[in-house]
């Protein structure tokens, strides 16, 4: 869709009311409004404070381990060139992995959590709550809370607690309290409802550390800003490696924070093709989690965005093999970029992600999480169609250790 007038820049949003075009906004209960305004003010102050940036840089380097490498995936490249040749194209893009899985705690989530926890400290908030799906955001939040001596409560759908047991144990070891959420569909969206209910009850001392680029303004913009380090580093690293910008970017999307972090610094480089990969679950005609491909605009969790829902605006169950993508919505900025036609949103099924996971493990010696395995599944499709001098970057947003039990089960080998 590109019917709408193109803006001069894709990087100036949101407006002062938190809108990206028709998306975003602040759809929350009155009880939370003063908190959200307080957060916005505190974030704007921090953004302009060199001391805040100095803290971010220090902990990014020494605690998270940034910058994460931009790695030339040589064997994956060779393999997909063979695929290209076999199909008579003799092309095959040169593939780079942005190694966010090497961050402390094993995913990109920690970039955002570091920013929010430093902000919570500035604001004097001592009690941190978070929602989590796959558990990566919960683990990152529990980790930073341990580091800074803050109380941490993580809401997690009871279904996700079951399928992401290693991460639940990790959070417990880090001193966080994990609350299994039994309401609704007992997955990520219900965890977010429960976190909002907690926040409404404990407004005075509590900071809600949202894990993705969704929720009421200023969260989508703030979380994006904290994740933009991914794309900023990629830009610099690609210039060093190849002397030019990449030709395409690929990232998976649940709420969309790893994707916007990679994409945003390149949005105005119109020569760079950008692909967001949603979770097609069992298939787009069956249960899935592809909000842009299969949804419509609606209002949930504080913002207007694309949602999976029925005729009456009741939110549908999402499904993905990956708990981190199992959400019936998407960040509002992605909804806008979709309508503007700047980013191409495609989807990968559970099966495609599992295949890409195995391919990556054998060819590169890297176990990606199931979430970026969706992005890899589309790299496998896209790369052979591109010429050999095409530079393609895929964000390996998390590592697969947390998924091993579940993958084993799908492949028919129970691990003891």
């Amino acid at each position, binding site marked *: 869709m590109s019917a709408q007038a193109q803006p001069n820049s894709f990087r100036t949003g949101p407006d002062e*009311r938190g809108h990206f075009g028709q998306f975003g*906004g*602040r*759809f*929350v*209960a*009155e*009880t*939370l*409004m*003063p*908190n959200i305004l307080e957060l916005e003010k505190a974030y704007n102050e921090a953004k302009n404070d060199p001391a805040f940036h100095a803290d971010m840089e220090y902990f990014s380097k020494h605690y998270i381990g940034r910058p994460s490498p931009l790695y030339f995936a040589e064997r994956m490249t060779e393999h997909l060139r063979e695929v290209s040749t076999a199909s008579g194209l003799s092309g095959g893009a040169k593939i780079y992995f942005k190694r966010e899985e090497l961050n402390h705690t094993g995913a990109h989530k920690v970039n955002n959590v570091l920013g929010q926890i430093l902000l919570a400290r500035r604001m004097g908030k001592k009690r941190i709550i978070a929602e989590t799906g796959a558990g990566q955001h919960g683990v990152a939040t529990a980790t930073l809370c341990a580091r800074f001596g803050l109380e941490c409560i993580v809401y997690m759908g009871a279904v996700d607690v079951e399928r992401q047991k290693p991460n639940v144990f990790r959070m417990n070891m880090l001193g966080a309290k994990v609350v299994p959420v039994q*309401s*609704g569909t007992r997955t990520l*969206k*219900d965890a977010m*409802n429960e976190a*909002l*209910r907690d926040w*409404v*009850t*404990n*407004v*005075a001392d509590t900071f809600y550390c949202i894990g993705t680029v969704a929720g009421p303004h200023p969260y989508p913009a703030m979380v994006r800003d904290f994740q933009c380090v991914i794309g900023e580093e990629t830009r610099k690293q690609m210039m060093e490696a190849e002397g030019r910008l990449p030709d395409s970017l690929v990232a998976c999307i649940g709420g969309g924070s790893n994707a916007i972090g990679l994409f945003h610094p390149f949005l105005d480089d119109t020569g760079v093709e950008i692909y967001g990969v949603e979770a097609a679950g069992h298939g787009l005609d069956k249960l899935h989690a592809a909000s842009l491909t299969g949804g*419509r605009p*609606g*209002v*949930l*969790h*504080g913002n*207007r965005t694309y*949602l999976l*829902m029925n*005729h*009456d*605006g*009741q*939110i549908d169950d999402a499904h993905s093999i990956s708990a981190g993508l199992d959400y019936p919505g998407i960040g509002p900025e992605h909804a806008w970029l979709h309508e503007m036609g700047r980013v191409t949103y495609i989807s990968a099924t559970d099966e495609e992600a599992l295949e890409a996971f195995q391919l990556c493990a054998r060819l590169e010696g890297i176990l990606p999480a199931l979430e970026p395995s969706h992005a890899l599944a589309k790299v496998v499709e896209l790369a052979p169609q591109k010429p050999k001098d095409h530079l393609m970057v895929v964000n390996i947003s998390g590592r697969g250790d947390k998924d091993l039990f579940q993958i084993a089960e799908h492949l028919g080998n129970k691990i003891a």
Partner: protein
Amino acid sequence: MTKRIEARFEQCRAEGRAALVTYVMAGDPDPETSLAILKSLPKAGADIVEFGLPFTDPMADGPAIQAAGLRALKVGQDTVKTLDLVRRFRAEDQDTPVILMGYFNPIFVYGVDRFLADARQAGVDGLIVVDLPPEEDDELCLPALQAGLAFIRLATPTTDDKRLPAVLANTAGFVYYVSITGITGAATPDFGKVASAVERIKHHTPLPVVVGFGVKSGAHAAAVAQGADGVVVGSALIDALKGTLDEQGRATSRSVDAVTTLVKELSEGVRSVAKRTAA
């Protein structure tokens, strides 16, 4: 604007008492039972009835109202059917104000203009939409006022004097003071603090101020009625209904009575507090 809300508060003032506002969920546990309950409420002493629009993700509601919404959705309740129930209620009762309360998404998806026209036509008097703060007034509040429906705003303990004028600016009908920072049906408020909060709000508006969240019994209702112009009860009524449902969550012969029995107690509580008639 419809005149029913104003007329009803005038009537209560003339009787020297606070109004009793009751909340039940449309379609819980099935459409016919919820209509029977709605019809029984004014007879049991309710002055204003709130009818909940079910939603899958009620972020400001506690377990009782969450479960009520899911029961209603399970039997296929939707916005079209809810407006139809209001129409049938209105055919028999032309005086009791009906307020629809819920979340924005089902209304947004129905289409704001179409929803307002259909709601007005069905006999709805006002709307309470939890996830629309004044910052989003363009979405529904202003169009609702234009269409002649009261948009009733929630004020909360976190709404300070600086923010109150914005919250009250486009509100109509009455102001709903949320007695606690929290979700519906949770903690019981400190009634002393509630009274001073009501007084604070009344400095800013001539509208009636009603108080809800955490009111469970006739004694609570009486305590709130001391200072407020009205008392809202929701989760307690839904709990009373839930206690009568069978194992499959279906209504039984006791369902309607269980709700009306509690409404009578609440009504007696409200009526036990004599207030000065309005000057």
